[in-house]
């Protein structure tokens, strides 16, 4: 399966298992979603469980919270993460706080799916990586898969989870892993182990990172599309890096991170999002606080620049193989 099919399969499996699961969003119903993630679901489960919505993100999330309060388990889609901002009040002030402010009387068991990230010439409003906004909000969980296998297992866990989850789907790797070499021929998931996806039910626990490459020289913390760009660069440079795909950003798998950094003595953080107060800053801080005496070099952050996401200069903006290689050389020099 590619990642779209895996995500579609996760919703299919969960809708079949649990009549409380409903799917909603702009163009998700009859049409099956602008990325086809919900294709066939309305035909199979009916219009009262899979439905198109008006174009109002605050409405979509607000309505989903009300449905959750009723006892449903909504899976709202925000068409692009760049368009999640109108729903911020409902997510931050309502979904994230509902359990806390009602002392558990009401919960918001939502899974907000949204394509995110760049590398597709999406320009300013089809490329953003706003995960740092959501990891900052207590009460929300933030999950980002890097393979079809993980996408399905994590999404099932999210839908079953009783807390509100932001599930960001790296759209650059919907159809295949991305090496970071934008001029190379596109790959698909068929030759990647992460593309082997069981058709039935399985789950990947939230809050658990995956060590995707064992290594001794440096720990690289990353997620989403960058897992693959990092893997390619590591392979090309021959550096014995340990690569950790965080998978869940909040709550973070601190144990896996600490174990690795204490072993390697070096830590590099890679994400597409802009640098200043991005999630990398939090990662850097927790590693610095907990691994200070194990660190042999300053923690490196490889990120997008602190600019809006440009259109024509995308590949100068994107934290690709060159930026990662230079940072690796720097961190290993000390």
């Amino acid at each position, binding site marked *: 399966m590619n990642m779209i099919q895996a995500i579609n399969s996760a919703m299919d499996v969960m809708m079949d298992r649990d009549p409380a699961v409903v799917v909603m969003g702009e163009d998700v119903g009859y049409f099956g979603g602008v990325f086809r993630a919900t294709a066939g679901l309305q035909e199979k489960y009916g219009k*009262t469980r899979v439905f198109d919505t*008006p174009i109002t993100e*605050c409405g979509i999330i*607000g309505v989903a919270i*009300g449905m959750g309060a009723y006892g449903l388990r909504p899976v709202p889609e925000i068409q692009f993460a760049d368009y999640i901002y109108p729903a911020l*009040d409902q997510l931050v002030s309502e979904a994230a706080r509902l359990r*806390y402010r009602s002392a558990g009387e009401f919960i918001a068991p939502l899974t907000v799916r949204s394509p995110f990230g760049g590398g597709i010439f999406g320009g300013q409003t089809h490329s953003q990586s706003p995960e740092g906004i959501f990891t900052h909000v207590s009460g929300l969980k933030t999950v980002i898969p890097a393979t079809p296998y993980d996408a399905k297992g994590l999404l099932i866990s999210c839908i079953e989870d009783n807390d509100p989850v932001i599930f960001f789907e790296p759209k650059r790797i919907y159809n295949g892993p991305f090496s970071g070499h934008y001029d190379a021929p596109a790959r698909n998931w068929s030759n990647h182990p992460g593309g082997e996806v069981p058709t039935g039910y399985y789950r990947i626990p939230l809050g658990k990172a995956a060590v995707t490459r064992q290594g001794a020289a440096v720990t690289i913390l990353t997620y989403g599309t960058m897992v693959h760009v990092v893997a390619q660069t590591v392979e090309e440079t021959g550096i014995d890096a340990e690569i950790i795909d965080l998978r869940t950003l909040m709550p*973070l798998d601190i144990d896996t991170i600490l174990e690795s950094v204490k072993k390697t003595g070096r830590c590099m953080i890679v994400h597409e999002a802009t640098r200043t107060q991005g999630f990398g800053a939090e990662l850097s801080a927790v590693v610095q606080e907990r691994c200070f005496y194990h660190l042999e070099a300053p923690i490196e952050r490889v990120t997008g620049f602190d600019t809006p996401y440009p259109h024509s200069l995308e590949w100068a903006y994107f934290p690709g193989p060159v930026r990662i290689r230079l940072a690796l050389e720097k961190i290993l020099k000390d």
Partner: protein
Amino acid sequence: MPVDAKRANLPPLSLHVPEPQFRPGDEVDFSDVAVPPAGEQPRPDTAADPGTFHELAYTLVRVLDEDGNAVGPWNPRLDADTLRTMLRNMALVRAFDERMFRAQRQGKTSFYMKCTGEEAVSVAATSALAADDMCFPSYRQQGILITRGYPLIEMMNQIYSNKGDKLQGKQLPIMYSARDHGFFSISGNLTTQFPQAVGWAMASAAKGDTRISATWCGEGSTAEGDFHSALTFATVYKAPVILNVVNNQWAISSFSGFAGAEATTFAARAIGYGIAGLRVDGNDPLAVYAATQWAAERARTNQGPTLIEHFTYRAEGHSTSDDPSAYRSAQEWSSWPLGDPIKRLKDHLIGLGEWDEDRQAAQDQELAEMVRKTQKDAEKNGILGHGMHQKFETMFEGVYEEMPWHLKEQMQQMLDEDDAAGHPGPKR
């Protein structure tokens, strides 16, 4: 300032900034507030086409006339016991407000908000709903809880954030939550409850349930984007929901003109969405009851949502943190042409021969005494400022269903601080 030479003969543009009629010290004259005679407004079939509500969106549905008689097609013809119960609940809300306002002034809690003059929009409306219909209130519908028999002491415990507070001191006073009484957790963020109520109603419909939802916001917060989203969703899916706009003329210091009231009514907002819209005398408990009953029947028979504007007046300050004499004339409430909802229902019952001034006075005394006694009981659980009443660990509970490691770590930090401070908090 540059002026285009081609338009030099036109007056320059001017920006209209609304201004209320009366400011502090002004003589108040509300004679231009249009108050149509009671009983003259048509009562359409509950299945009527939303396109036919133009008249009802611009008039005021009124039942009680100047002499306290119930007249016209909207008269809900309630029996005397129901009327007396409504009167009692409204009076209880007022007594409760008086007592809790004073408790705030005495420093027993940090904050309170009265609903004086608006008791009908929650009490009479809730009386017309089924007990299992779901309410998504704003912060000024304490009458819902009182009508549904929610224990006063639970409300007070919440206001005091004491050890009896079911919300564990997590919420600002009056931000109640009472799931068992069909009362959704109140948020400080305005109008967020509107799309949530629509979503709840959609869920009920999708599941083939028979329950409906009702939600309330003030006229000021109709300006929020969530209001538009909620009305759009409500009409698109014909959601079984009652959307109440409590137009009490004031949003803190801003008069209703800043929400658009100079140009139109709030009920008229419904027209553009294809929603049935009723504009109701919000100080007429029978009109509020009748409109809610009508909207509930419309919702329950799959005819879709109704928007009800309750035309009323916020008799007191916005909150204990507000001083209305700084921005409006003190005479407004006494001059308000629609009067006081409690007095109007009382006069109606007296006119029916089902009540008298002595019983009213006795009831007022009884309710005040009950509230006072309950307050004493609540204060046995503690008041704000007299120590910290919740176990410190509760601060970290309920952020997530299960506490993640970083919160456990921070909780330990807090417990260490408590140790270092010599344990000022309750025993753990």
